């Protein structure tokens, strides 16, 4: 059924269609509307039987989900930013134990400095924790990925993180096609756990493993993710047949057929990139786009094939490996058959900085004429940076950087008298 609804609401309804049995919630912007949407459904009785638990922190949220999942329940939670970092120990625990929890991450920057706006630093901080990580481009894809996530996670006994851009998707009202309960029931079979705390067949979950077998257990987690790479395309195809649209899968190429330059990105910024590419294509520029939907496991072969024709690759990413540069771009480099220098990194949109078509077009053009630096920070205010560096040169006690910069911008008055 077509609906014009908020992204968070769309995800809440999709999660409800997946019949979760335990939902743990602790609010944090921009995730809050998702769990509040589910809470409202619980109140209306639209989600029975489901335990909705208002927990005391994200650490509790993930830990409660772990307990519920270990007991054989379909468990769901959602978070963002600081919340994801706060639950990090339990996040690793969930994947280490192989518990198929599904979690939405409404992507938001990480502090300090505190910032509530969108980027991918939160999800990227957990990229190697053993969860499957999917990134939605649109609200339709966000809702579809949740339905696929339960299927995928439960089949493989792995937790799945569905990442959607905070505010840009979570708070945007868009038209979505909401599946029916019958469609979802047909696609997502009831959860049959591989392991469960069952009094009839007692097991203990969470054994200590020493050097004699730790490597093997970790290796098996890797094997599972590799297995996911094989299965995801088929499931996306099955999804297409059942729901009538292309959603999910490993990646999506756009106008790459004869492209010399391919732009790689994750999430909602792909929309702006495609518009920019369309405009450049009209002027005859051979440029295309590769959107990565499945970031973990990393689709090594699929990316390699998708970039086979490209002479240049530009990875536009909303996260920064401080002290290195790009995160996604370093993943891309492992899958690009050409020279590593042909893969350039553009860090963009940190902390909600707008990514405009004009700026994109400028860096794409620079990449094509070979003048783009290996790592570029889109629309960085050099003047501000220089002032901060000068302050540090001038005085040992130069003060807190964020407050100083805000003062330079005139956002706060001088507080030190």
């Amino acid at each position: 059924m077509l609906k014009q609804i908020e992204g968070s609401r769309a995800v809440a309804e999709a999660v409800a269609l997946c019949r979760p049995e335990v939902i743990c919630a602790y609010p944090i912007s921009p995730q809050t509307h998702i769990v509040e949407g589910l809470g409202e459904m619980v109140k209306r009785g639209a989600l029975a039987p489901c335990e909705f638990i208002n927990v005391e922190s994200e650490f509790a949220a993930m830990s409660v989900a772990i307990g519920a999942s270990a007991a054989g329940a379909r468990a769901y939670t959602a978070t963002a930013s600081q919340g994801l970092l706060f639950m990090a120990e339990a996040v690793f625990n969930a994947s280490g134990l192989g518990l198929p929890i599904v979690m939405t991450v409404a992507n938001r920057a990480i502090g300090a400095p505190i910032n509530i706006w969108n980027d991918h630093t939160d999800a990227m901080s957990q990229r190697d924790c053993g969860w499957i990580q999917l990134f939605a481009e649109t609200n339709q894809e966000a809702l579809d990925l949740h339905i696929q996530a339960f299927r995928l996670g439960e089949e493989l006994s792995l937790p799945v993180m569905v990442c959607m851009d905070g505010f840009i998707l979570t708070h945007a009202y868009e038209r979505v096609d909401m599946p029916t309960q019958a469609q979802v029931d047909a696609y997502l079979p009831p959860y049959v756990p591989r392991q469960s705390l069952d009094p009839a067949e007692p097991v203990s979950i969470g054994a200590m493993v020493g050097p004699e077998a730790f490597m093997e257990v970790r290796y098996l987690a890797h094997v599972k993710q590799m297995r996911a790479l094989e299965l995801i395309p088929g499931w996306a195809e099955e999804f297409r047949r059942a729901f009538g649209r292309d959603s999910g899968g490993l990646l999506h190429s756009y106008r790459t057929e004869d492209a010399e330059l391919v732009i790689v990105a994750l999430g909602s910024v792909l929309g702006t990139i495609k518009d920019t590419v369309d405009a450049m294509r009209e002027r005859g520029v051979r440029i295309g786009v590769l959107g990565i939907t499945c970031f973990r496991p990393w689709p090594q072969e699929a990316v390699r094939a998708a970039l086979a024709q490209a002479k240049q690759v530009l990875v536009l990413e909303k996260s920064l490996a401080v002290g290195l540069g790009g995160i996604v771009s370093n993943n891309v480099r492992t899958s690009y058959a050409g020279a590593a220098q042909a893969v350039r990194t553009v860090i963009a949109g940190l902390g909600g900085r707008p990514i405009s078509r004009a700026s994109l077009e400028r860096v794409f053009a620079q990449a094509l004429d070979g003048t783009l630096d290996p790592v570029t920070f889109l629309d960085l205010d050099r003047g501000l940076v220089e002032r901060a560096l000068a302050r540090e040169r001038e005085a040992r006690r130069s003060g807190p950087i964020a407050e100083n910069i805000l003062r330079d911008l005139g956002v706060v008055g001088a507080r030190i008298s």
Partner: protein
Amino acid sequence: MTAVPAVAYTPQSYKSEVKPVWCPGCGDYSVLSAVTKALAKLELPPEQVAVVSGIGCSSRIPAYTNCYGFHGVHGRALAAATGLKVARPDLTVIAAGGDGDGYSIGGNHFLHACRRNVDMTYIVMDNRVYGMTKGQPSPTTEPDWDSKLSPHGTGLREFHPLVIALASGANFIARAFAGDPNGCADLIVQAIRTPGFSFVEVLSPCVTFRPEQREWKTMAHPAAVAPTDDPARAARRLMTDDGFNIGILYAGNRAPYRSAQAARVSPAELEKEFAL
């Protein structure tokens, strides 16, 4: 000759020029005013005071003062304040924040800060709701308060911060009401003067998400009891009070935490210790 402070401090001396973004009518304005009044009364130079907070509407308070301010992550105000105080015992340390910050996500630190009894004052602006994230239940929320995150109410018994503070070892326990900034300021003065961990729970209405809390002005009343240093009496008092008793409800004599005086050992002496 009695020492005369070089500067005469007024509440204004402690206010920064950052304008609060709190909703009009929020109780936190009065708490800010009470804190600045208390500091003026104590004649503490602003730079000798550190205000440490976590995240929440109430946790914005450091930016609105002219003191040394530290705005940390959600739930960690007390831990950061502990580090600050042990590194700079000469400073007056005030930790401040909301009931969510202090009792849910930061609840474990609350227990251990009471136990550790470091000399600082902890001001919790309790509005029984998460204000900043727009109206979700906190540990002090009434069990039947209906919200999107607590369909039909949480059904959970409220957290009783004062009883927990007492059981955990806080040395000074008071309840204040934001509707009476002068009374609140007096309690903060006493809290700062009392050595050890002083806990001031301030009933501070969230007029936006709990408009019914405007009625607190008819409910708050002075505690009809003198402060006690007997934990058993205080426990009975706290367990049976109506939640609106305003005043000092417990003031103990427990020695505050002292940083271990590191013995100064020369490298030569150290070497001797490790000699085989």
